[in-house]
């Protein structure tokens, strides 16, 4: 298998090129995250119009974004399952069309329920099909510079929320909200163009071959394929469950300041402009934090999971200190702590995604991301209302910030319970070298069906320490032989590299 064709031209390297076309895909992620989350963050302009036109309360109108975000997170596993089946490109393009359709239909709405269904459900599902596959594609394109690529891609969110608010205001003034939503649908169609930029790296995940005599559409084989595409086997594995619990705790605390910082600043007696400036400054440090964190984690000094723990720990601490910062009416104090919060919150974001391949391996990363999004939505749904409740009970935001900081620190501690957390080295790099020397002599009859990409071969190594091979029959033969010598080499190398 390995020696069939003559050596290929250097530029067509399908496995983690770490550059070249990868940067184009990062640009696509930039535009996509701008068009998905930037639009969500700038919806406030439309809400004012909806309240005036439909005569509904602000709370009824704010359900639109809640439904949209909930759909984006809960439908994510299906998005990644479709990606596993058909590849990222068609799924992202379909998602772009779907989210545009949601906005186009919303422009014809005659009651708020129509808006829930179109902007909430349809566009939310479209975003689910777009966001996670896009993130996963970028991660497939990079290994060494993964965090930096992710960070640069995510800066789209911050920059677009600055640009979109005045733009939406202008559109609403010129065309009223109906026309503005129609044009927004057109803008969302650009996601289709971004999806077209994703050149597939290697074939999609292939499921194990059908047993002879079994039809392709029988219940058992459909269920089997769905199970494999959705990566539901991950739900039974401790590392994944640990990480998803940690992420859920992070989500409980992460959004609280975005929701409450302005109100807290006003509560402490600062003017509207001062409060708005705090938020803008926090947004700027968020963007800076993302890029700095991405660049720093790619330097390779610390393991990704260690860096994640570092940033989330700092974030939790800054949240705990936030009520103290404005003590005595000190505006510089509040500003400093908010800037620290913004920096750490931004720093945490690319790492949250970049750590996933370390835990579940490149092959299952796609499904893992989808499942993670769905599980972490629980945290988001819990966090903001809980903090609101605490504010209503205690009368100030101190309790909310303390609880949010507490959740973040709890998540940090849960992250520390990941297997092999306290070793200095990443287990994979050791096993890969040992594994590759054996790889040349392997000839599995099923590799014709399965993918032949390098990333696929190396993925089997990635899956070894944390997961049991269930449906990847390819690795079944490799497992026992590889494990034994690895255990010996692990201890030697570990002592050397620490």
């Amino acid at each position: 298998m390995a020696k069939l064709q003559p050596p290929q031209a250097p530029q067509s390297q399908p496995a983690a090129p770490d550059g070249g076309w990868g940067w184009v895909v990062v640009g696509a992620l930039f535009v996509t995250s701008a068009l998905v989350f930037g639009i969500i963050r700038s919806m406030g302009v439309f809400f004012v119009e909806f309240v005036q036109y439909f005569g509904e309360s602000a709370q009824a109108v704010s359900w639109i974004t809640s439904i949209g975000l909930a759909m984006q997170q809960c439908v994510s596993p299906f998005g990644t399952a479709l990606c596993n089946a058909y590849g990222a490109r068609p799924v992202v393009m379909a998602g772009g069309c779907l989210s545009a359709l949601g906005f186009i239909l919303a422009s014809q709405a005659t009651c708020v329920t129509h808006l829930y269904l179109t902007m909430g459900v349809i566009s939310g599902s479209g975003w689910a099909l777009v966001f996670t596959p896009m993130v996963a594609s970028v991660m497939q394109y990079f290994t060494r510079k993964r965090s930096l690529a992710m960070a640069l891609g995510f800066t789209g969110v911050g920059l677009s929320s600055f640009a979109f608010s005045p733009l939406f205001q202008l559109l609403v003034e010129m065309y009223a909200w109906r026309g503005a939503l129609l044009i927004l649908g057109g803008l969302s169609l650009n996601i289709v163009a971004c999806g077209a930029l994703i050149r597939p790296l290697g074939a999609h995940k292939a499921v194990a071959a059908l047993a002879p005599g079994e039809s392709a559409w029988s219940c058992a084989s459909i269920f089997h394929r769905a199970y494999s595409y959705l990566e539901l086997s991950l739900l039974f594995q401790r590392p994944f469950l640990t990480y998803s619990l940690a992420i859920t705790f992070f989500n409980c605390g992460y959004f609280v300041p975005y929701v409450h910082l302005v109100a807290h600043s006003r509560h402490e007696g600062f003017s509207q402009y001062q409060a708005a400036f705090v938020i803008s400054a926090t947004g700027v440090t968020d963007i800076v934090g993302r890029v700095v964190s991405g660049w720093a984690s790619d330097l390779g000094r610390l393991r990704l999971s260690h860096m994640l723990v570092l940033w989330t720990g700092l974030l939790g601490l800054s949240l705990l200190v936030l009520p103290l910062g404005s003590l005595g009416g000190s505006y510089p104090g509040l500003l400093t702590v908010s800037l620290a919060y913004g920096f750490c919150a931004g720093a945490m974001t690319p790492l949250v995604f970049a750590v996933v391949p370390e835990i579940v391996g490149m092959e299952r990363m796609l499904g893992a991301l989808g499942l993670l999004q769905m599980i972490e939505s629980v945290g988001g749904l819990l966090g903001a209302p809980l903090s609101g409740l605490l504010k209503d009970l205690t009368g100030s935001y101190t309790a909310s910030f303390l609880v949010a900081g507490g959740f973040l620190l709890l998540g940090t501690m849960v992250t520390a319970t990941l297997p092999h957390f306290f070793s200095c080295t990443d287990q994979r790099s050791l096993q890969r070298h040992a594994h590759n020397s054996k790889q040349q002599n392997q000839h599995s009859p099923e590799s014709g069906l399965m993918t032949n990409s390098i990333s696929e071969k190396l993925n089997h190594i990635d899956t070894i320490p944390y997961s049991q091979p269930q449906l990847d029959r390819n690795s079944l033969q490799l497992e026992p032989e590889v494990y034994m010598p690895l255990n010996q080499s692990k201890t030697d190398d570990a002592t050397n590299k620490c």
Partner: protein
Amino acid sequence: MFSPWILSLQLILFPLFWRGLYTTETNPQLVLTDPVTTIFKSAVLKGDSLVEKVEILKPIDLELACTWTGNPNKLPNITGYWRKDGSEITNSRLTVQLENEQYNLKRVFRITGDTLGNYSCIFSDTDEAKIDFNVAAPEMDDKKDKPVVAYVGDSVAVACKTKLPPNTWLWYKANGTEQELINATTDPLRYKISVDGNTTKLTVMNLTEEDSGVYVCSAIYNIKASVSRVEVRVITFMEPLKPFVAIVAEVIILVLLILFYERWSSRKSSNSPTENGVHAEQTHKLTREGNNGMDENTTTRQRKI
């Protein structure tokens, strides 16, 4: 001569009396049926100019009192007079004497709907120091300078708000220089007027292009009506459709460009004659070739420690 001294001062607004302005009577001795009450309004000037707003709801007698403390010369006698809308009121010149370091000037004006305007008291020395009183009916709260946009067949709601509730609200549609009263009872399918204290809302339904134009809401007070204008623009759906179609065309062109570029560059780079097939086939081919480079790849792919 005053300038350097005056420039360094800030005009301080003296706390104002609004005795009886918002109540039906000021003086217990006045009979309730007495239609004209007296309102007192005073201001203190420390620099050389001050502007005050006086909001009047119904015809009253208004006594304006000006006090000037800012004169460095401290002449015992200066001239004071009154102006209305820029022109001097006849026989209003008086000699003002310096008492307790200040000059006082007082006059009573009968304010009706016709006599609203800008009243100024002027202390005349070598320079003039004045206080302007803008006597007018209450103004509308929100200034709408941007037109309200709505679509044909849709409905639009226009609102007006004041600080003090008027006796009634009236809506007009402006046709050039004329105004046509809008009667919601004769045309209930098209117009709806609702009044809620100091706010009023006009809803125009089943919009057509002729409904574009300026709508005027007027708050009728005893003294005068206060108006505010709003422009309504009715457009068809064709208007936003044009940029929308332009964006869709741009997206389609981009997608086609990207796909063609990819096909062209992969055709250029593949060694063997490529079948002009699906992308999946080509990438499969590429990945198969990728296996040979595995040794080189592993050395470049180093995980972070």
